[in-house]
């Protein structure tokens, strides 16, 4: 996988503040010194490489609806199967297998190894989705809604020089 200089610039300069005008890609092209077609092609290729999720908004979950982080503790052999069940829900937008790293102070906490984010337009629907996931997977869900946000900066400076691509 090789990422062009233009693509690197797009990634590091346009995670926020994407132009809101009739021809936004043309404006970006002008700012970076490329043609509109070059920018459009570069973005399409990032999409093809599965590096781009989308060009669009990141909503504030709190203002945009209801959401929560959730986790379940699944026996390792069932992890892929259960993850697939959870993936089927449109309301789930992130779903990761995680393993605990420390374990040096294991006080008998459950080993939560599947972590996902559920969003809905309001808390009633959110609760329904969580109940349905619980019933379809057969595992109790740890529900951990955000109570306070101290910092959020999803725009993310990518260090291309140090990146090793597979």
């Amino acid at each position, binding site marked *: 996988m090789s990422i062009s200089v233009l693509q690197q610039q797009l990634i590091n300069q346009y995670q926020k503040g994407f132009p809101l005008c009739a021809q936004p890609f043309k404006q970006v092209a002008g700012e970076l010194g490329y043609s*509109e077609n070059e920018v459009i092609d570069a973005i399409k290729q990032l999409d093809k490489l599965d590096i781009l999720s989308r060009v669009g908004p990141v909503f504030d979950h709190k203002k945009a609806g209801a959401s929560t982080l959730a986790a379940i503790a699944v026996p390792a052999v069932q992890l892929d199967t259960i993850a697939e069940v959870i993936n089927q829900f449109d309301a789930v937008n992130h779903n990761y297998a995680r393993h605990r790293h420390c374990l040096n102070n294991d006080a008998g906490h459950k080993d939560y190894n599947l972590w996902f984010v559920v969003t809905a337009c309001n808390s009633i629907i959110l609760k329904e989705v969580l109940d349905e996931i619980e019933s379809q997977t057969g595992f109790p869900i740890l529900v951990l809604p955000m109570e306070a946000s101290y910092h959020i900066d999803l725009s993310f400076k990518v260090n291309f020089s140090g990146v090793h691509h597979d």
Partner: protein
Amino acid sequence: MTNLALETGSEILSLNSDQLNKLREIVEQGLPINSQPYLAIANQLTAMSVTTVSVKQMPSTAVSEQQVIQQISTWQSEGLIRRFGLVVKHRQLGYSANAMIVWNIDDIDIDAIANQLALRSEISLCYRRPRRLPDWPYNLFCMIHGQSTKQVETQIATIVSELGLSHIDKDILFSHKAYKQHGARYQRQVSA
């Protein structure tokens, strides 16, 4: 071409609630990658309005490019949209070590410590969440996206030492498989 919404001032009509919901659904999935993406979205909304508005309602249902642009801009200034631009998949860019650091901090200390953690450039998110005893004792969550497990471990060790947090019970959960990673869909019904 400059910002149409600014040029045409406040004369642009607001969208109705169906159109707003639909616009949100459309932009959640990302702009179409073509020369005039906002116009394409406006045309999509117009097509939708024509099929759903009853004949008795009289309004002009055509949605303009300017209305789309103005609405997104309004959502941004209201804070509903936190940022608008390229959303990339860190993992595909070599940021494969994604660590969630969870801390069990006394309630009385949590704001002070969280505010210190939030200032660290390595940390991309810092949230307070409820404990769920006895299964889950941790109440503060930080995320670090790094290029290797080792690098992230070093970053965490540095943070712990510099902020004097070694006495606080914590755990680190590295992700080892991403089953799903896309933008939120604020759907209105349960579907699987």
